[in-house]
């Protein structure tokens, strides 16, 4: 396939606006999501460095805090407690939603779904464009909320009412909270527009021969992720809507029996627990909305670079489906100590621990894929192996937190912070890096610098564990999360050194990300030109020309003859066999499960 024929598809002239801004092309929209997500991630990361300064050295003055936050929020360079809570809240919101939901799914679902299933574009290019623009609008509003006088939302990323419902409760529950709700509502619209599109595209637009059991695992993961999003985000939307009503129109869905700031509130009969149920009905599937694409990317990168079929392809699909199903019936494990019926707590303990089984299957399959492989350590591969490590390290502590009896004492402590940052945050971020390094040649037609990639990986991987591993010990000592400082409690005095160490790792790790950002933008313009299939991959995206064209393939759509994992197949000359190569006489398709 030569790029010379590409011209036939350029039937209309592109202006700057239609090409870069209001693009309907999934490849451009994918880049838009990625870069917006990266900008949001940098904001969220800087926030974490700022509050780590306070946590590591409470009460000490830092000029940077004053320089960035001003006299109101960091007088004399000491962080204000309200601003501390605001930073924690917006850091969580940005990282969970804007980076790891919008940024991760938005980038890779858009890039990979049409390219890997052999489609010309998404089912609806227009809806796809709208999805990005809603995402951008919600990002802008979230950033704008940082600049309102009373500060942004500060009630934690879960924004439980009554704290988030009453401006009397904290300054951040004023205009900042309104903007948070508006931003999240737009975000949900974006997520639904995108998700529906992904689902429809995977179901309807697969090319000839691309049966569901020949789909790469990345597509399976992104597909199921989209299904989860479409089913659970509307529930968060309902929760947000009712909260808006409670805040602005005097309803009492979540409010009852409140006497605050010396004044009686007349709302009666509502329950904050209702909000928690609605929130976590999204909130738990959300964990897998973040994690499944990460696992999908890891599957692709590991198989390609180990030059070996992913082990247990069908078991991998089965475990994605099992995780997706179970993720809808475990949300109560976030609420063991809300006074929920203990019997219900027991049921949620059971379902939550069930989810450990498909997760374990995935981890074991990754490890077996490496066994007797022929491993090339591209930066993407390093990040993927790192991801398997964090998935295991963070996953095993989930077994402890899922145990309702043990959760009594660990709930809302740093043990939880350590657990979810490692299993969800780190795994997803590492996989996202893997994805960027791996598909950068597909996105920009150039290669990223490998040496910088190595430096970036090791600094990130080491500092990430340096930040989150010690937090298990803080949690076991009973340190609550979201505390501005611990010095009010002598029982935590001996842990000061631990907190300092965590802060140092956090700040070094944050700085290391600038290596990546530099590498990314430098390589975009100056990186060496990539060949069509630089990694020797089997999947369809590497059969498209390096220069992007509308419709992806210059000629007819490719036909698929085999699964995506024929690496190092005996009897083949090369160590990979692209999906477009027909089966030889008597050759069996590896994915057929015989």
């Amino acid at each position: 396939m030569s790029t010379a024929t590409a011209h036939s598809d350029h039937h209309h002239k592109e202006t700057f606006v239609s090409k870069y801004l209001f693009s309907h092309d999934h490849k451009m929209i994918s880049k838009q999501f990625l870069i917006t997500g990266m900008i949001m991630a940098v904001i969220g990361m800087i926030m974490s460095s700022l509050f780590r300064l306070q946590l590591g050295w409470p009460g000490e003055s830092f000029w940077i805090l004053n320089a960035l936050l001003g006299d109101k929020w960091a007088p004399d360079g000491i962080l204000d407690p309200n601003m501390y809570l605001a930073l924690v809240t917006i850091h969580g919101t940005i990282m969970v939603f804007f980076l790891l939901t919008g940024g991760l799914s938005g980038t890779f679902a858009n890039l990979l779904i049409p390219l890997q299933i052999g489609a010309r574009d998404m089912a609806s290019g227009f809806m796809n464009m709208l999805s990005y623009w809603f995402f951008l609008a919600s990002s802008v509003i979230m950033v704008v909320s940082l600049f309102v006088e009373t500060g942004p939302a500060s009630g934690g990323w879960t924004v439980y009412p009554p704290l988030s419902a009453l401006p009397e409760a904290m300054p951040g529950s004023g205009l900042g909270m309104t903007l948070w709700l508006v931003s999240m509502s737009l975000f949900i619209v974006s997520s639904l527009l995108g998700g529906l599109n992904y689902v429809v595209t995977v179901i309807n637009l697969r090319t000839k021969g691309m049966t569901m059991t020949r789909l790469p695992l990345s597509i399976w993961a992104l597909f199921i992720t989209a299904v989860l999003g479409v089913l659970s985000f509307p529930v968060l939307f309902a929760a947000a809507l009712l909260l808006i009503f409670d805040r602005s129109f005097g309803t009492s869905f979540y409010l009852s029996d409140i006497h605050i700031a010396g004044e009686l509130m007349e709302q009666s009969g509502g329950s904050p627990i209702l909000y928690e149920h609605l929130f976590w009905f999204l909130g738990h599937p959300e964990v897998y909305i973040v994690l499944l694409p990460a696992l999908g990317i890891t599957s692709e990168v590991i198989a390609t670079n180990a030059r070996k079929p992913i082990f247990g392809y069908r078991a991998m699909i089965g475990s994605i489906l099992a995780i997706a199903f179970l993720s809808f019936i475990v949300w109560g494990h976030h609420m063991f100590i809300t006074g929920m019926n203990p019997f219900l707590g027991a049921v949620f303990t059971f379902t939550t621990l069930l989810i450990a089984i498909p997760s374990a299957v995935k981890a074991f399959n990754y490890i077996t894929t490496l066994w007797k492989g022929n491993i090339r350590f591209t930066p993407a591969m390093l990040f993927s192996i790192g991801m398997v490590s964090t998935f295991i390290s963070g996953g095993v502590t989930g077994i402890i937190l899922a145990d309702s009896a043990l959760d009594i004492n660990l709930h809302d402590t740093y043990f939880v912070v350590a657990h979810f940052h490692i299993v969800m945050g780190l795994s997803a971020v590492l996989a996202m890096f893997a994805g960027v390094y791996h598909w950068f040649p597909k996105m920009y037609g150039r290669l990223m610098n490998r040496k910088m990639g190595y430096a970036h990986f090791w600094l990130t991987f080491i500092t990430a564990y340096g930040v989150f591993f010690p937090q298990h010990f803080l949690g076991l000592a009973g340190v609550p999360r979201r505390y501005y400082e611990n010095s009010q409690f002598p029982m935590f005095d001996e842990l000061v050194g631990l907190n300092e160490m965590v802060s140092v790792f956090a700040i070094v790790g944050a700085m290391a990300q600038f290596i990546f950002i530099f590498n990314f933008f430098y390589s975009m313009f100056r990186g060496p030109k990539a060949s069509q299939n630089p990694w020797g991959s089997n999947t369809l995206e590497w059969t498209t020309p390096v220069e992007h064209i509308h419709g992806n393939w210059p000629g007819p759509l490719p036909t698929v003859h085999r699964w995506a994992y024929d690496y190092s197949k005996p009897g083949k000359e090369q160590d990979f066999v692209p999906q477009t190569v027909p089966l030889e006489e008597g050759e069996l398709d590896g994915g057929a499960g015989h």
Partner: protein
Amino acid sequence: MVVFFTVVSVVLAVLAIAQLIRVFEVTSRLKGGVSPLPSDSENKYQGSMMFLFMFAYFGFFAWLLAKYGDKVLPTSGSVHGDTLDTILAFNFWIIGIVFVITHIFLFYFAYKYTFNKDRKALYYTHSNKLEILWTSVPAVFLAVIVIYGLSAWIDITSDAPEGSMVVELYPKQFDWTARYSGSDTELGASNYNMIATNNPLGVITKTSIEQMSADLEAEIAELEEDLQTIPQGGLKYEETKERIAKRGRQLDRVRSFEGLDIASLESGNDDILKKNEFYLPKNKSVNFVFRSRDVIHSAYMPHFRAQMNCVPGMTTQFHFVPQYTTEEMREITGNDEFEYTLLCNKICGAAHYNMKMTIKVVEQEEFDAWLSEQETFAQSIAPEDEGGEGMASESGSNGLEISMIEQ
């Protein structure tokens, strides 16, 4: 100025790195192009780094255990806490073994099977036997964990045993109040409509109803007087009218409490309210009940392995038996200043990190003696106490008590 120089130096540093990389790339292009794939030496180096990292990771874990392993929570101060600690240790052993084994495989394979162009990877697509193995083995271990954990959970969350002492913990931004039932075993009825400066928990007794009604009537009268002086139709006029109506509705609700039965109205009189510190008797089951005045708080007593959310509009419960006095715990921990502590563990506002109470566990006799010295609710709201003695002075205003932080 400092900001300016920092920005300038960062920009210069970035430019310098950019130039270096360009030089590097130009020279490597001269040497015959840039391969997308790592060279043999790079593969070898990264594979070894993976293996090294495994040792560093385990080493870090071991170092943390050695240095901070004994700084985690000391021996449980409650009976059920011992059970939880045992379960926790059991679970830690299981996940610890899984963690170590899987990491050894992961990093060792990465090191062992580093790329070699003369070798081909093993084409091994699946094995149903292996999949069944690693579905069923975790399932068995998880079943044990579930059964073990839930047996404790059911015990801990069952109803408090007969004869338990009742203590209410009532949070607001940003402090706690503990309430004992006094000489009877029942807490007096309470309602948020009854909250006043001298009645921070809204306890309902005959006297408190009378006082509250009188206060509200006085306020309504004052507001109605104000209303005469405000020009009609303005915003202020409407607001004042609305305020009068609101106070009127509150008054109706307060008066409706007079209809409660005599026993309920009596029971609050001997209740005892404590701030900053409260006592518990050793070896006696205590049933805590929780409400909240404003937002969700969480009563976290880590030394007792106890925690329960305090939710406005509903009542929650948690019971346990303290098994060591504060003095005994000081001996066990070797820390002369050891105190049982109650923390707030649900984000609740600016001073969330400073919402605490000290819990003293003492022998029963000492507890009885202490309790009998405390002022009862009836005494604290008695009219002769007009100078603001008792609860009124302790409780402070309802607003943000951030000044407390500075202590």
